[in-house]
């Protein structure tokens, strides 16, 4: 088959996009449109083999704007529906669009089991730390003490970190990005798509109406992001700051932020990111970092190779079929203990 070269516009269907002006979802949508031609090229997948599956919530409207196969399903179940789709059709590139309420509250069970099974999905987790479509109730990722319509005196629940949860649930690829970092998001999407197995791409998105500036402390401007986030790159030193002057070192069993050249710390003390490490301990620590104690980690936190659920299902089928070649239903029905009435 001749390779088709796509442009971002080939992946949008022209429907009017109805997110609020200023919503972070617009940015992620644009990053996806930019990522897909590259994914198509790298994996040699034509447009008709892309499927976008979503649950319910603002971000789940995503699929209505795509010119791919799509299914806007029910609240929380996109990961489960995608699991069935990918198992049945390993040849498809299956994407899940889901919010923090969708994936971590009502759909939490499907989320962790999709991670555990390592099914080859690309799950874009739009984390705006609020329920937007129902108009402003706290979510499982809302910061402790957050005042919302259903927590007028502040939340009293510890939030989930989606990336930490995904790592704990054995996801083989976990990345984090920020809505305004279009290129970073695009890169994470492409890397996630090329990774074989469950890819969780947490995108920190702004809800301009109900949770405006929830990520602002560490994501508001380029200057803030340079100082308060750290871009993790496999094989590179964990450095951040406008001049990459700050780094992460291991202090006992904890991470510590240091300035290179101060307090006796040299560049050699700064950790080198190993996204491919099987061990989840350091990845968990990196994903757990919260401002102001630490910079917020973005980039690929974890990227390990292990067999995918869909390819293992296919392998078992191949094995059984080569052991019993050309078996038909009749062979099953007439096999074993039967008797004839003459």
């Amino acid at each position, binding site marked *: 088959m001749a390779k088709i070269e796509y442009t971002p516009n080939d992946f949008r269907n022209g429907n009017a996009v109805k997110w609020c002006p200023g919503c972070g979802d617009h940015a992620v949508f644009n990053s996806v449109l930019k990522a897909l031609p590259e994914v198509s090229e790298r994996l040699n997948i034509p447009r008709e083999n892309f499927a976008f599956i979503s649950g319910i919530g603002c971000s789940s409207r995503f699929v209505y704007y795509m*010119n791919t*196969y799509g299914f806007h399903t029910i609240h929380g*179940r996109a990961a489960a529906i995608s699991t069935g789709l990918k198992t*049945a059709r390993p040849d498809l590139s299956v994407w899940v669009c889901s919010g923090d309420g969708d994936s971590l509250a009502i759909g939490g069970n499907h989320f962790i089991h999709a991670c555990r099974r390592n099914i080859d999905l690309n799950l874009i987790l739009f984390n705006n730390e609020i329920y937007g479509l129902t108009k402003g109730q706290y979510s499982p990722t809302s910061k402790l003490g957050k005042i919302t319509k259903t927590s007028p005196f502040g939340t009293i629940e510890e939030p989930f970190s989606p990336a930490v949860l995904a790592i704990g649930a054995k996801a083989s690829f976990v990345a984090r990005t920020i809505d305004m970092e279009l290129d970073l998001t695009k890169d994470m999407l492409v890397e996630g798509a090329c990774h074989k197995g469950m890819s969780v791409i947490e995108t920190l998105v702004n809800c301009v109406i109900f949770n405006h500036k929830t990520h602002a402390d560490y994501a508001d401007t380029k200057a803030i992001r340079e100082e308060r986030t750290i871009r993790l790159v496999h094989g590179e030193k964990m450095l951040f700051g406008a001049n990459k002057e700050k780094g992460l070192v291991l202090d006992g069993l904890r991470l510590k932020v240091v300035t290179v050249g101060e307090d006796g710390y040299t560049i050699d003390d700064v950790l080198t990111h190993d996204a491919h490490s099987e061990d989840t301990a350091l990845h968990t620590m990196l994903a757990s970092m919260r401002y102001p104690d630490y910079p917020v980690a973005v980039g690929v936190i974890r990227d390990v190779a292990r067999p995918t659920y869909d390819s293992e299902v296919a392998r078992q089928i191949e094995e059984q079929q080569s052991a019993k070649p050309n*078996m038909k239903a009749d062979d099953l029905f007439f096999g074993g203990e039967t008797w004839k*009435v003459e």
Partner: protein
Amino acid sequence: MSVVIRFSGDSGDGMQMVGNLFSESAAFAGYGVFTFPDYPAEVRAPQGTVAGVSGFQVHFDTHAVTHEGDKCNILVAMNPAALVAHSKYATATATILLDSDGFTKDTVAKLGYDIETIVEQLGLQECNIVEAPITQMTLDAVAQCELDRKSALKCRNMVVLGITLGMYDIATDYAKKFVEKKFGVKNPLVCKANIAAIEAGENYAKNTHLVGETHAEKGVSALAKGTYRSINGNQAVAWGFIAAAEKSGRKLFCGSYPITPATGILEELAKHKALGVKTVQAEDEIAGICTAIGASFGGALAVTTTSGPGLALKSEALGLAVMAQIPLVVVDVQRGGPSTGLPTKSEQADLLQAMYGRNGDSPLVVLTAHSPADCFEKAYMAAKIALERMMPVVLLTDGNLANGTEPWLIKRVADMPSITPPIVSREELAEKAECFNERGLFNPYSANENLARYWAIPGTEGLEHRLGGLEKQPKTGAISYSPADHASMGALRAERVERAKELMPAVQIEGATEGDLLVLAWGSNVGKVSEVVAEVRNEGGNVAYATISLINPLQAGIAEAMSHFKRVLVCESNSGQLASHLRSMTSHKDIRSLADMGARPFAAEALKADILKNLNEN
């Protein structure tokens, strides 16, 4: 002529195995058979207690048998608890075969009875009590096999098998072959011991002239010509789907969560990867149906299997399948409810849940199976309706069907009806302008003449589209909340389901097509109810009978048939759900309900009395 044997013992005594082997041997010998396992939910309740008693009933006859039978003519009791628990299932003059080695003063006293008077205490004075030293016979028979006592005692059930087969002069070859296959290579000593036990039992029956009252004429089969195998309802459902997948050219996908009594379907399907069957044991019931919906979106014949509590959990996703016109079969192997209810007992009380248990007006096809072998046909037809009409179908079976067995006249896939899903390519739709919008994009709810949505499967170039659970415009499928669009889509959803009745045959009336009383039944009650009605009719009663298989849409011909009878009596194991549905769906003025809420099969005697009462009323 009919004989009912009930094997009862501790959960670990192997009663299910001896029951299955007896019934298969009888079927192999040409008898009609039907089985009914009756086991506790607990895996191994404490030994020797009434709670731990496991039963297995076999009904066999010289003609085809359609139900599990009533009270048993032969009761096998492996211990005092089994006798106490199951003596109520024996006829007044039954033969009771008990392991006399287990009946001591202490074991009987433990249950609150006296060894001297237990027979009277249980009301078994008229019975023929056969006190056989089954334990000692077993130990003697396997003495040559160098087994430890515990392993040796595991052969007790094979002595019982030998005795009961011997009583009815049924050959033991089938059972011996089974034992050889099961243990021959793996454990030759155990194999030898089991065969010795079967022979010891057979000899005991012959030597003591223990002869059952009924014999079949040798060499005359109860069944139509053909190749048979023994099948239970769960296996038959699984195989019906396998046949439908092959016929339709779709890959079979099952997403399910384990639940009694439906688990056997998932277990069966999981074995058949050589046939390309994919199964996902999902993280919960919701994921079970959702993985199936995803697989269906991807072009598979997708099924999910469950029981009542699971159907409740699946209801939102089932509504999505209605809304997005997704082909899907949901099997509900009904058990006693509500809530966790009676997991190992059978009931028909999920009918209205299947009909109405979703938000919004959400009609779907509800099909039922009425015997273990019929589960094959109905699973196949459920798949055909789902695939050809692009809609979810709920198939109702129940615990009795799931675990009951009967001989199945094996079907070849080539002899099954065709299944033609409306799969399309861009080229095939090129002439149909109505299938595309002004931008040339595919309108995803475009449908064929049967109102079946064209199935544009991901991977099909030029037909990319988006489905969803939001209300839509009829033509374009674009999201719409307009009252007119909602009203017309609602009407369309109803009409799609109504049209599905075209794929099922009209109801068949047994007996005169008009008269005083028409008796209706569905599901696992069909065998016994139809037989009792036939008996009343043979005795001169003006009563007809019909099975309803398709409940929604209401099977063709039923309303018309009912109108020719003064009274209609609906027999079912619930509070009268089908009767209530028929009252709402037909104009018949005298629809009566014979409802049994005991989560047990109807008893023939009481059933006959009820039918006569309704027949003879003025």
